């Protein structure tokens, strides 16, 4: 399926893999790109050396284009932005703010810039400063989220800008893909489904937790701190939400989650760790290869869009 985004990124299918912290490393990114989608390495809070190394390893596993997600609030953001420009990738997606100050450097390095946005004003601003496309991310997503739903945010952003919009949040199958296209999105970004892919290095216990998740299993922690995070319900979220309700301070709450994502993804502690996943976890029922996932989504979407 051709779209503006497939042309722009030089990929076969308009499916982009989200830049999930700890989860989106070179094996997953390369697998998604090899399957015809667009894989992304999530830099999250990692230092530049890690990102550099991951880019090099991904290049050994695929000759297809892939990207890096730069988390702008990271203390290493400046050096990561620089490393990405030096190593060279097809595109950068950015989270948690505005990447304006890196725009020139990335453009000069021939890297496409695709900010993740959760509001119309930010979308307009990003278009003005030269973004090549946007990811409009609804609050159904996992991890750090905005407050608007995909259903309402995507068409409003589509109306507000003239660059291609990639819908994210709650999309995990061909139905979600087709719906996103109906909302005016050119492509989709998915995270949660790829967590359970065969190529994903996430701990088996984490995958199992996502596969078993029901519709009501996701919680949003940190609403009161202004940094809401969607994750799957467990001992950790119960205690966190109780403390939050009791009016615990930002510092106290932050301390509680420190290192807990790593604990879940790497060590497989799904009771005390943070199991980040989107609401679409309830739709994800099977461990498959990235290629099987993408082919299945595209087949289903094409059929649905033809009938529509």
């Amino acid at each position, binding site marked *: 399926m051709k779209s503006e985004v497939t042309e722009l990124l030089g990929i076969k299918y308009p499916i982009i893999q989200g830049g999930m912290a700890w989860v989106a490393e070179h094996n997953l990114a390369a697998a998604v790109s090899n399957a015809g989608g667009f894989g992304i390495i999530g830099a999250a809070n990692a230092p530049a050396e890690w990102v550099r190394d991951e880019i090099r390893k991904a290049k050994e596993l695929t000759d297809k284009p892939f990207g890096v997600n730069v988390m702008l609030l990271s203390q290493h953001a400046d050096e990561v932005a620089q490393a990405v420009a030096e190593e060279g990738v097809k595109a950068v997606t950015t989270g948690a*703010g*505005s990447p*304006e*100050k890196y725009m020139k450097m990335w453009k000069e390095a021939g890297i496409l810039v695709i900010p993740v946005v*959760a*509001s119309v*004003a*930010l979308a*307009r*601003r990003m278009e003005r400063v030269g973004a090549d496309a946007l990811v409009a991310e609804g609050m159904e997503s996992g991890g750090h989220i*905005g*407050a608007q739903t995909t259903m309402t945010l995507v068409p409003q952003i589509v109306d507000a800008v003239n660059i291609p919009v990639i819908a994210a949040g709650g999309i995990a199958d061909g139905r979600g893909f087709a719906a996103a296209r109906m909302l005016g999105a050119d492509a989709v970004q998915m995270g949660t489904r790829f967590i359970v892919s065969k190529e994903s290095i996430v701990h088996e216990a984490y995958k199992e937790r996502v596969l078993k998740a029901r519709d009501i299993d996701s919680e949003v922690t940190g609403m009161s701190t*202004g940094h809401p995070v969607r994750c799957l319900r467990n001992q950790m979220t119960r205690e966190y939400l109780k403390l939050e309700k009791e009016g615990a301070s930002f510092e106290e709450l932050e301390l509680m989650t420190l290192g807990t994502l790593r604990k879940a993804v790497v060590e497989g502690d799904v009771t005390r760790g943070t199991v980040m996943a989107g609401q679409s976890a309830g739709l994800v029922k099977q461990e498959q290869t990235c290629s099987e996932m993408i082919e299945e989504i595209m087949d289903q979407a094409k059929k649905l869009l033809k009938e529509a």
Partner: protein
Amino acid sequence: MFEKMKELIAEQLNCPAEEIKMESSFKEDLGADSLDLFELVMSLEDTYGVEIPSEELEQLTTVESVVDYLKQKGVEA
């Protein structure tokens, strides 16, 4: 400039204009989050015909800081 800006801020943040003072902090006093601030900055840019780069957003924490900032940029009204 303060009167006009008060109106603009009240409209963007949906708060009563009488609560907006020179010393009001957008985050602490007026309950704005980071997305609200982008919304506000975009409308300031439209209204006053200036460009505010996002590196400079961090210093714009209070109404007064915005007034000073715009004056520095040569905005008069």
